Structure formats: structure tokens, C-alpha cells
């Protein structure tokens, strides 16, 4: 049975984080695309809308929350699901993420268990 793999866009300015996330997601059968800031991620979405987005907050050029606002404005309020993945762990950030249409919030550092638990919580696994 040929099933198209879900494409996950990993947006983070750290190459190491992108690599770790890619490894975890690929083992679960996701196809992975990477972008190193919000602007490049937006470009990628315009070319081809992914099935899920893992999103860092602090990045040069365009940060995560700006990217999310642009994404929701252009592509609608829910899809694709966005999971923040950031070192910011204050409640105010989580509330801001929710208000702008993120589906989940992962606090760095993360590991396989956490990443996959969060993907399961939003129905991607």
C-alpha cells in the first residue's frame, strides 16, 4: 500500500536541532524539509504546504511568531498544525502561541519521547 508520507517542515536556526528533529521524525516515517528562519519557511510553504510544522521561536530575519501570523493569515486558521519548539518556557509565550494559532508547545531540551508524544497529541501519529 503506497501511502504518501506526511511532510514536516522543521524551522530552526540551529543546524543541530534540525538534524536531531529530522532523525526522530524520519524514524516515524515523516518526510522532512528544513528551513533556518521564518522567511525561508514561509517561502517553502508557498511552494508546497507541509503536513506539519515544527517551529523555533527566536530566529534571525523572521521569528517564529511572525512566521505563524503570516502562515495563518495566508493559509487559514488551522492547517497545517504548528508545534512550537523553543527554549522560551514562560507562560506568556505559551499563551501567545495559542492566541496565534499554534497547536502545541514543546520546551527545549526535548527528546524522542517528548517530540513523539506531542505529535501524537495533535493527531499526527
Amino acid at each position, binding site marked *: 500500500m503506497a501511502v504518501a508520507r506526511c511532510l514536516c517542515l522543521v524551522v530552526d536556526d540551529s543546524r543541530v536541532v534540525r538534524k536531531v528533529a529530522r532523525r526522530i521524525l524520519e524514524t516515524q516515517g515523516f518526510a522532512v524539509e528544513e528551513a533556518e528562519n521564518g522567511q525561508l519557511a514561509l517561502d517553502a510553504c508557498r511552494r508546497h504546504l507541509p503536513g506539519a510544522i515544527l517551529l523555533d521561536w527566536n530566529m534571525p530575519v523572521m521569528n517564529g511568531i511572525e512566521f505563524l501570523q503570516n502562515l495563518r493569515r495566508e493559509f487559514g486558521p488551522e492547517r497545517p498544525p504548528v508545534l512550537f519548539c523553543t527554549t522560551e518556557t514562560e507562560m506568556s509565550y505559551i499563551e501567545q502561541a495559542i492566541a496565534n494559532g499554534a497547536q502545541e508547545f514543546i520546551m527545549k531540551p526535548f527528546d524522542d519521547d*517528548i517530540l513523539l508524544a506531542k505529535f501524537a*497529541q495533535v493527531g499526527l501519529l
Partner: protein
Amino acid sequence: MSPHAFAVFAALLRNRSGLTIGPDKLYLLETRLTPLLRQHRIANLDGLATRLAQGRCEKLARAVVEAMATNETYFFRDITPFAHFRDHTLRYLHASRPASASLRLWSAAASTGQEAYSLAMIVAESSPWLGARGIEIVATDIARTPLERARAGHYTQFEIQRGVPMAALVRHFQKQEAGWRIAENLRAMVRFQEWNLLTDLSPLGRFDVIFCRNVLIYFDRPTKMRVLEALAEQLAPDGVLYLGGAETTLGLTSRLVPEPGAPSVYRRVSDATGTIALEMNASSSAAASAIERRPVSRPRSGAFGTS
């Protein structure tokens, strides 16, 4: 470790907590008991076994039982039992009980409290339709140390992330310097208490819902049978038991039957007729009246609370 020492530990654990360890678990004894040696100034595990065999040190015996227990747990573990509780059981019980009756929920191997607080979160989020319904959550475990953590309601970022959805985190937790603390209203909802499942459970009273998850797996067959019988005794006739994913009542007791189509969900069978006891109460509400009388031998799926 000498075979004699191993036999002493195995017997102590089996008698006190039900934990069954085979010789393949020797390494587990070593890794988990070695820290106790330093604490109690005992030279080696053989020495510890000798002390235990003398049977005079209750504190030491308890420490061994606690050290050998696996306390791993997380919020909303496996998700589906909690979704079933939220969407079916809680609604059914609320509809079928008199408004003045409190619902009693029990987390029977509560460890550090995540299971009990998951139930508390569901109850809190159901308050729009639960109204003023009284709900009591009792959470018990044989081990003291995890219960202390449970009572404090303080969790690390890792523990939070493994199971608490973002929306629930915002609603039910406060950020602390290190980690997160459960909201006071949820903490107040749960009563934590030390209790051994191998002892008389009747003082705890009747429960409408029992979560007894991921503890029977550590017991041998006779102990599983005995505990399941005792749980059935504490369960209301139309109550629901939730077990862990690797646990079952099949072949162990005829008093608790799996709910067709709902993994981990078990119901009581009425003792006299062998029919699902639920029918005895099936007149008091719309939710309940949707449940038809049915013999246990021919269970039908999806009837419970699906209206």
C-alpha cells in the same frame, strides 16, 4: 549475590507488595538496592538479605519494597482510557446518579500522582455540564516517597511535556522556578493515601471508577486474581475499571469483563445472574436507558454512553 539472598528478596517482595521477580531480574535487585546499602551501612546485598531474614527491621523492609517498585508514570498515559472516561463513563455516571450523590474515583497505584491529576483535569474541564456534582478522587500507592511528590504536585518540565497538552498546561499549572506546579483547585480535589493493594480494601469504600493501571503486570497469577477480586468488590455495580494496556481480567476473574471495542475498559458482572450489572440501574436517565439488557455471553459493542 547468593541464591539464598535472592530467595530472601524474592519472598519479601512477593509477600509485601506482590512484586514477582525471577532470577532474570537479578540485575534489577542490584541496581535498585545498592543505594540502600550505603544509606544503611550494610556491606553487600547478602548482608542486607541477612538483616531482612532476621525480620526485625520493618523500616528496612519497607525501603526495599519501595526501592524495587517501578514508579514510572505520565499524565494522560495512553490517552484512550482517559478519553473514554471523559466521553463515556463520566457522562453516564453523571446522568444516572442522583444529583446529590458524589462520584468516587480511585487511582489505585497512583505513584507520583499524574494519573489522579489527569482525572482531576478532566473533571475540571467537564464542570460546565457537571455543575455542582460532587467528585471525590482518592489516590493510593504502597510507596511513600512517590506519594509525597504527588501531594506536592510539583513536576519537572520533562514530566509535564510527556503528557500534558499545551492548553491544559496553561489552564491547570503554574510555572515555578524549576518545573511546574498543579493548580491548587486540582490539588485540593485529590486525596493521596498510602495503601497496599494486597491488604483489605474495604475501608476505602465503594468507587464508581477505578484506575488500576500498570501495577498488575508486576504480580504473579494468584496475586493478580486476588487483587482483581478485591477491586471488583470495591467497584459499584455499574462502575468501570480501567487497566493498563498490557493487563486484562480474562482468565483471572469472571467478575470483570472487557468492554467490547474499548481496550483497557472493564465492567462488573452482577454476581447472581451473570449479566452485566449495569442493567439494574438502567432506568434513571437517557444515557442509561440507551443501554439494553444483554447477557454477558453476547456483549454488544458501543452501547455504553454513546447516546
